[in-house]
């Protein structure tokens, strides 16, 4: 049996999306910038994808920019907006558990003379509004907070943050990295006070190398890539027509039967959490039920190195990811796990199981069964 529980890393592409990618590559392969019919055909794919996404987010089509994925969208938003708005101030706020695409963009801006506040998180992995309020300054121009954390599935109060920012006496832009939440939540940036939103295609069963940035049309942003002026000059380069088409198809598909699918994922998540917590020496991270994302489960297994457990599960056909990457000589401990105060004994023993709409109860039970079997075995051989 093959059980893929690493859907926060990437997902299997929807066949409909893959079929459209193939068609756009082999039949309608024109360059949207070309004047002739082939170009117009290709442009049609982009228009359709924009329509689907715009309708889904309740935004305007011209507020969408296609990119190569989450990292590029994050960089465009954070760096592009910081540079375009620096006359109003050079202070930025983010959280300590953001994805490296945001954190390292912030680090880069610090080297360029910006100052950045990194908000801590509570033990459930959430930013406190009071901390944010205290961090806001006259010269704060941008706040970037992820919607769902990729390691533990914690959900940030983006609506409250959006509202708080809109109450400030001066404009503070709000960027939300929604890579882990898009497709899992219905997100309407307008209602949530979100000015910029990042999403990625391959996390929602679309093709890799695709994604988009939503940018409120009033927001000033400088390009970070220069070239032929595509996407209104903000993202030059021939559009990835097949990828964009596949992304559009995936968005359409992921929001189909949305509520039933979400309920089912929550049901499976709770089943997993409940059963796994019965095993001795297991500590669950993050909040249960609807207080965290439907697809991420983070659990620490005392006395077992996460990488060993990962490979042991792999031998049984179960694919998961480890909480922190094993770099033998200098173990790089996850900032998120450290940030939420995970105990030392669990830092190197945390596994992330991430579900998708395709995950079945049988797969969850098979995984639990194997955990129950493997853990005592692996714990017999521990380091002294």
């Amino acid at each position: 049996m093959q059980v893929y529980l690493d859907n926060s890393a990437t997902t299997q592409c929807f066949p409909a999306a893959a079929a459209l990618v193939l068609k756009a590559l082999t039949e309608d392969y024109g360059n949207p910038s070309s004047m002739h019919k082939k170009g117009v055909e290709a442009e049609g794919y982009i228009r359709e994808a924009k329509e689907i996404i715009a309708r889904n987010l309740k935004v305007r089509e011209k507020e969408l920019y296609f990119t190569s994925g989450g990292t590029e969208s994050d960089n465009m938003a954070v760096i592009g907006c910081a540079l375009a708005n620096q006359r109003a101030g050079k202070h930025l706020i983010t959280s300590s558990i953001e994805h490296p695409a945001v954190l390292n963009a912030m680090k880069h801006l610090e080297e360029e003379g910006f100052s950045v506040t990194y908000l801590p998180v509570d033990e459930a992995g959430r930013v406190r509004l009071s901390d944010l309020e205290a961090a806001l300054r006259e010269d704060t121009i941008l706040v970037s907070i992820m919607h769902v954390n990729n390691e533990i599935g914690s959900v940030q109060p983006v609506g409250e943050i959006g509202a708080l920012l809109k109450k400030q006496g001066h404009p503070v832009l709000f960027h939300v990295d929604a890579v882990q939440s898009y497709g899992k939540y219905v997100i309407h940036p307008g209602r949530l006070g979100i000015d910029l939103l990042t999403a990625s295609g391959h996390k929602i069963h679309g093709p890799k190398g695709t994604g988009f940035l939503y940018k409120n049309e009033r927001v000033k942003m400088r390009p970070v890539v220069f070239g032929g002026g595509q996407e209104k000059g903000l993202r030059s380069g021939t559009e990835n027509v097949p990828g964009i088409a596949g992304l559009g198809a995936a968005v359409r598909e992921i929001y189909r039967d949305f509520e039933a699918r979400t309920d089912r994922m929550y049901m499976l998540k709770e089943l997993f959490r409940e059963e796994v917590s019965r095993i001795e020496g297991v500590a669950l991270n993050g909040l249960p039920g609807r207080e965290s994302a439907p697809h991420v489960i983070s659990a620490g297994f005392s006395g077992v190195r996460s990488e060993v457990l990962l490979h042991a599960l792999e031998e049984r056909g179960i694919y998961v990811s480890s909480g922190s990457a094993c770099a033998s000589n200098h173990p790089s401990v996850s900032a998120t796990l450290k940030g939420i105060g995970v105990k030392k004994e669990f830092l190197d023993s945390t596994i992330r199981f991430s579900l998708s709409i395709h995950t079945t109860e049988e797969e969850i039970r098979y995984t639990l069964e194997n955990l129950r079997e493997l853990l005592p075995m692996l714990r017999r051989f521990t380091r002294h």
Partner: protein
Amino acid sequence: MFQAFLIKYGEIGIKGKNRYLFEDALIHQIRHALKEVDGQFRVTKEQGRIYVEALEEYDYEETVGALQRVFGIVGICPTVILEDEGFEKLAQDAVAYLREEYPEGNQTFKVNARRARKDYPMESMEINRELGGRILDAFPDMRVDVHNPRIMLNIEIRQKIYVYSQIIPGPGGMPVGTNGKSMLLLSGGIDSPVAGYMVAKRGVKIDAVYFHAPPYTSERAKQKVVDLARKVSRYAGPVYLYVVNFTDIQLYIYEKCPHDELTIIMRRYMMRIAERIAEKTGSLGLITGESIGQVASQTVQSLAATNEVCTMPVFRPLIAFDKEDIIRISKKIDTFETSIQPFEDCCTIFVAKHPVTKPNIKAIRRSETHLAEKIDKMVEEAIESAELLVVG
């Protein structure tokens, strides 16, 4: 401009009646190395010379690079081939050659003609003299120096005329395949690929064995070893890599033996298994990357304890090398970057915090008696189930 390379070889020239065997092996290795270079080449042996002739357009740098990985080659001489159209034409061409290669035109030189075809109308000495004169006429700033010339212009007269003046150093050593075969214990570290390279350089064909311990070591760790074997194969020719699943044995030792002796006992079993596979597959020795004192398992006492389990000779070419020297070679042969990828230590749970550094062989033997019940069968199984990958 160079259509050919004259290959100089050293040690194999002195091997008496076996000389042709060595030359044939060298030709074989040269052909193998040139397979990864774009272009067609003809490799021929003629009167104690090996020539590599390009039959079409080729990449000079790439070709020299490939030849520099062929053990047994001492020097590579980029050579221009001329048709014999009389001495006047030869002189013109020789001058043109020098103008192209040494545009400064102010060096000391010597002409060294060799007349392999005796019906050529001039004798060697005569050619030297005449050609020297023409060169001095053409390059007023050049001087003749017969003892220590900066440019040694070699003119070899055969069916065609071969002109060369540069010698690019080769790697030396002896052609792989001329000294039997040995089994390299290949880990993912820095040392073992270097050890394999060094022994291959002495003409030994290399097989390799890797001990895989899933789930304690990952697929990526195995891939890394395959990548290292491929790098070694660029010098040593195709490598037969045996991947042995060692997990059960490791766990069994872990359960039955004192933990401070784990590493030594594990290594003893690795040597035993490697030797058995070596015997089965025609290797005559084992090769390890051990170096005295580098880690606890490589003290002289530990080496003695590991060594006593096999009867085959164990070649340890790095035994007296400092780490920096080993790293220098690993960078030269391009294994360093691969070796330092961090996938290796995922089985560190099997390393005691304070391993014995001066193991008592008697104590180790006694500990191993605790394994008597199952170990022979496990070793047997590990050998039977070893996976063979042909790399390179």
